[in-house]
């Protein structure tokens, strides 16, 4: 009974949200119609759908390009960011060398580096991935390093008293301990990766949703721009939820607060 009513309440909440959104769309549609708003300024929802549908044959390619830039950049950021975080945590020398550079780079608006990168690496998939990776990289390094260092002092005492090798402590204790930190940074990173990929495509690309957006803007196809925006949001949200699902898969214990141990 109780569970049932909770379920019903959730369902009602979803319906309310859906109704509200529908209402907004209807008002939008009617307003455009009523005041005769020119479609290059603000197209009606129906028109957005129709005109986006018209270019459906080219959309998959551009979507796939942007998607691979986002995912590629994200993966590059992980495979470079995590090892650097580990180096920074384990080596005092590297920490002294890398950390100041990281902090300096951190203060540079990364998307502003996109033109430079394009200059060096040229047009194409790879440089755009690089921009996405660059933007996604910093939260991963910093959070992972924090996570690796957040390990309980007494837990370290315990592993030391067992004369455990550093590598073993890393694999069996530190790394799993830092996973919740890593995943919270990945959720930020995937969102940033989408931004990075789009900005890179704005600056130099001949395909991708960002490129399509730019050309549609040039052609005053405002409704197509709106359609692409919707697609981009869907892309971002989908990626975000994939990361959330991975988090649940890899650190299921994190769902409940980790520090329950501290309570009496």
């Amino acid at each position: 009974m109780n569970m049932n009513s909770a379920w019903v309440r959730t369902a009602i909440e979803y319906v309310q949200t859906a109704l509200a959104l529908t209402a907004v769309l209807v008002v939008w549609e009617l307003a455009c119609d009523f005041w005769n708003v020119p479609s290059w300024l603000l197209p009606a929802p129906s028109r957005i759908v129709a005109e986006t549908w018209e270019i459906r044959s080219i959309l998959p390619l551009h979507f796939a390009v942007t998607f691979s830039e986002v995912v590629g950049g994200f993966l590059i950021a992980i495979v470079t960011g995590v090892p650097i975080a580990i180096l920074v945590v384990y080596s005092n020398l590297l920490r002294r060398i890398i950390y100041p550079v990281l902090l300096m780079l951190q203060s540079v608006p990364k998307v502003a580096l996109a033109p430079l990168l394009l200059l060096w690496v040229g047009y194409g998939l790879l440089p755009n991935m690089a921009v996405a990776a660059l933007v996604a990289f910093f939260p991963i390094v910093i959070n992972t390093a924090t996570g690796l260092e957040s390990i309980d002092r007494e837990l370290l005492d315990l592993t030391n008293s067992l004369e455990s090798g550093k590598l073993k402590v890393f694999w069996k204790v530190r790394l799993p301990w830092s996973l919740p930190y890593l995943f919270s940074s990945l959720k930020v990173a995937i969102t940033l990766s989408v931004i990075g990929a789009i900005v890179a495509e704005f600056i130099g690309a001949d395909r991708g949703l960002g490129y399509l957006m730019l050309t549609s803007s040039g052609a005053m196809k405002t409704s197509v721009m709106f359609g692409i925006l919707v697609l981009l949001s869907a892309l971002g949200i989908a990626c975000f939820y994939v990361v959330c699902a991975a988090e649940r898969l890899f650190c299921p214990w994190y769902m409940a607060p980790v520090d329950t141990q501290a309570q009496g």
Partner: protein
Amino acid sequence: MLAIAEKSLRVNANQPLLRIEQVSKHFGKRAGGEVVALKSVTLDVERDQFVSLVGPSGCGKTTLMKLIGGLIPASDGKVWLDGQHVSRSSRTIGMVFQRAILLPWRSVLDNVLFPIEMLGWSTRDYRDEAMRLIELVGLRGFENARPNELSGGMQQRVSICRALVYDPQILLMDEPFGALDAMTREDLSMELLRIWTEKKKTIIFVTHSIPEAVLLSDRVVVMTARPGRVVEDVKIDLPRPRTMDTESLPQFSAYVSAIRKMISQKPKAAS
């Protein structure tokens, strides 16, 4: 105790299991100079004894524990364990802290087996022992539960199993019940006595609670702060086995108030 005599005949007949000789520990220089955590501490612990360390915070109890565990080196003096000079950590020591610090991603059983893995031993060989320990602390049926499904008291029981699984000679317990509520604390104290009798371990137990120390121990070592020193070593001559009823004995209260006086009367070292 007879058991003590027997066992010590076997190894190093005339030596206590743990000997701490004139041990001092200073910590890094700050503006004002060094912080002296321990000053010339001398202490012997016989095999299978239950010894408590009590004293105000900052008296170096935890530092002493770490020295015994070989986690930090002494600045001066020597620590001998079973006739051997303790220079670094050794697996003859099991540790229990105030917080259980279990690994949240591991089941109870895997948490208990954690030290075996870290020592590079075969967990299969120790599975049965781990299960016996889990049963001994009354957690049978919970071996596959995750730490966050357990109460604080249950978590601390798991951490006691974890400290015992590789059969260390000495159990170092640093305020193990400090984070628990009074009821759980009493339960666990009684359980610890039961484990101690069953497993024949030497236990060094740090606590803030004088009644707890008196109730559990063969000896209560009283320390003072700044610098950390041992000021008194009280032999507790109460009958065993002890139960919560032991607390109602007149000698019990006599011990408690005597020790309380020792702690409060000592002047704060010349400062």
